[in-house]
């Protein structure tokens, strides 16, 4: 018996290379907080621009020739893909290299890749967005979509934690988001003079949160794995089940299409099966050290 894959391997028309990036130009760079900036990118090729669409939670591979590629979540509005926002913290060679670039410079982009936040699940339900630090940008496209069709959803809450007040991201948009119907609570690990908000981990905000119906709520969480585990645990205490929780995971991604092996977590390729998973699909894997 010759498997279907082998038939495809020998008979199918040749597939285009997955490895050739499209050229994008940096239109603008918005400094956010220390070591974090948003790069607003546009395709130089009109066809590429016209055909490109992404969903909230997906990522691109940004390529600095001579340095390498890095997987970066798209942080802008999915309905305005003509300018692609990537909010980037300096963490490695590529992200450090990007700080040397200026508007008008070009880079390579492959994407979009990966699974997305299940926006359909939010309709008619309360939505809790729980995140920390650089975990907010991957949720930002979801926030834009929720607020654009605000009437389709129940209560919308953003619970956002950061190390300190000066590294809270996208604060210049918070007033807009509040006016559009998102309640926002912030907390920081370390207070500074003048900070009048909460101090402590983000799960404290979830413990105290009112005005949501646990039986009719979805929770999206993006942050370090340990944070996501504690958020899920707190959510269980508040009456949610694992089937109501989605998390965005991270591993070393290189090919972004499940062919290089780097990002495996048990049976999952984080790049193509994730990064967004329903919690019950991934939870048992997150608790095994070194998996």
């Amino acid at each position, binding site marked *: 018996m010759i498997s279907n894959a082998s038939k495809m391997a020998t008979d199918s028309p*040749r597939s285009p290379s997955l490895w050739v990036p499209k050229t994008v130009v940096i239109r603008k760079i918005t400094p956010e907080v220390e070591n974090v900036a948003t790069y607003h990118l546009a395709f130089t090729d009109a066809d590429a621009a016209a055909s490109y669409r992404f969903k909230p939670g997906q990522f691109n591979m940004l390529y600095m020739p001579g340095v390498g590629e890095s997987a970066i979540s798209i942080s802008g509005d999915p309905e305005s893909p003509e300018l692609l926002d990537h909010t980037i913290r300096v963490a490695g060679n590529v992200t450090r290299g990007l700080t040397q670039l200026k508007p008008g410079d070009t880079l390579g982009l492959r994407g979009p890749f990966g699974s997305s936040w299940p926006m359909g699940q939010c309709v008619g339900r309360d939505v809790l967005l729980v995140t920390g630090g650089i975990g907010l940008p991957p949720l930002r496209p979801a926030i834009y979509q929720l607020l654009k069709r605000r009437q389709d959803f129940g209560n919308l809450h953003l619970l956002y934690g950061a190390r300190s007040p000066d590294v809270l991201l996208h604060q210049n948009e918070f007033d807009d988001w509040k006016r559009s119907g998102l309640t926002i609570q912030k907390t920081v690990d370390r207070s500074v003079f003048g900070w009048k908000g909460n101090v402590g981990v983000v799960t404290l905000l979830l413990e105290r949160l009112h005005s949501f119906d646990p039986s009719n709520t979805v929770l999206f969480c993006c942050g370090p794995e340990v944070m996501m585990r504690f958020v899920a645990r707190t959510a269980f205490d508040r009456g949610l089940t694992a089937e109501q929780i989605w998390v965005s995971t991270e591993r070393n991604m290189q090919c972004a299409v499940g062919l290089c092996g780097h990002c495996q977590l048990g049976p999952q390729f984080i790049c193509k099966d994730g990064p967004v998973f329903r919690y019950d699909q991934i939870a048992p894997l997150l608790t095994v050290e070194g998996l």
Partner: protein
Amino acid sequence: MTLKEENHSEENLPATPHHEVFVAIDGFALLFDVLKSSGFQIVGPTIDQDAIVYDQIDSVDDLPKGWTDVQKPGLYRLNQRNDDKLFGYNVGPHSWKKYLFPPNVALSIGKKNEDGWEFQEAPDDPPKLAFLGVRACELAAIRIQDRVFVGGDYVDSTYQKRRQRILIIAVNCTQAAETCFCTSMDTGPRCTDGFDLALTELDDGFLVEASTPEGKAIVDQLITLEVTRKQQQSAELARQNAVDQIKKRMDTTEIRDLLMSNLEHARWDEVASRCLSCTNCTMVCPTCFCSSVEEVSDLAGENVERRRQWDSCFNLEFSYMNGGVVRDSTRSRYRQWMTHKLATWIDQFGTSGCVGCGRCISWCPVGIDLTEEVAAIRKDAP
């Protein structure tokens, strides 16, 4: 389908799936000429550095005539046979994946001009290759890599292009190494499909079966004879000899759940105390597909190539992420390799990643045998 029904359908008869002809040993050299005149470069077994490896070969003289391999955990040696068999060995350190999934290949090139970066596919025009001497376990390995590289949502075009330009001439094993366990993985030793031609070596020539029009076109140019009953019987005996010599077993019953429910088993610590994390098992494995991409730039940094190289889950930096390494112990890396190969591969690709070729056992410098590791974990299973 029941066994009885199978016997009614001639196509599914395992014994002689295709019409066989006999090619005398004197006429075997003609195969090389026919392949070359059909536009193929021939790659096949030849001796290099005391091992039977796969390389470009030009004539029958390049084949390991009269040699065999002796294999045990952590051991591979060549011994002289007492006959002149051309394919009287099992498998060496190479596999055919080096031709389909090259160890180092250019993927894309970038050029900087006054408008900025421009990218295009790296030029890639692989030759038509005839694989000579592909074993049943290796046919299975190619089927598995087909699923990995072509069978999913994303198709690897470098693999696909090479895959579409090969002719596969399989050889049925007539003996087995101590490290062979294809019968446990249901991949051999008989070549049943996935080839253009399959040979069974006898003392004075080969039984040849063609299973594709391309294979048939090659056979039609050879000097062939009808197969005698005696030759048929000799071939059956020789192929049965390989089955009988396989002593190694791996019990694959519920193996996915067995391994994934034992991720904290003490055996992982025990095997980690022996494993050198050297990556040999992944390099010799005919299905391992992990790779990394690196940048190759000119001095000005204006002409840049991206090259993909084989990598291994045993390398520390393989799981590097944001200033840390996910699998920072040999225990976690051996566990990743073995659970991926035997368990999560099934989730991902609907097949085991292991074909039972035994290479990882022979080429492990400390002789770790994954069949023993599975057995040790199974022993403690409820």
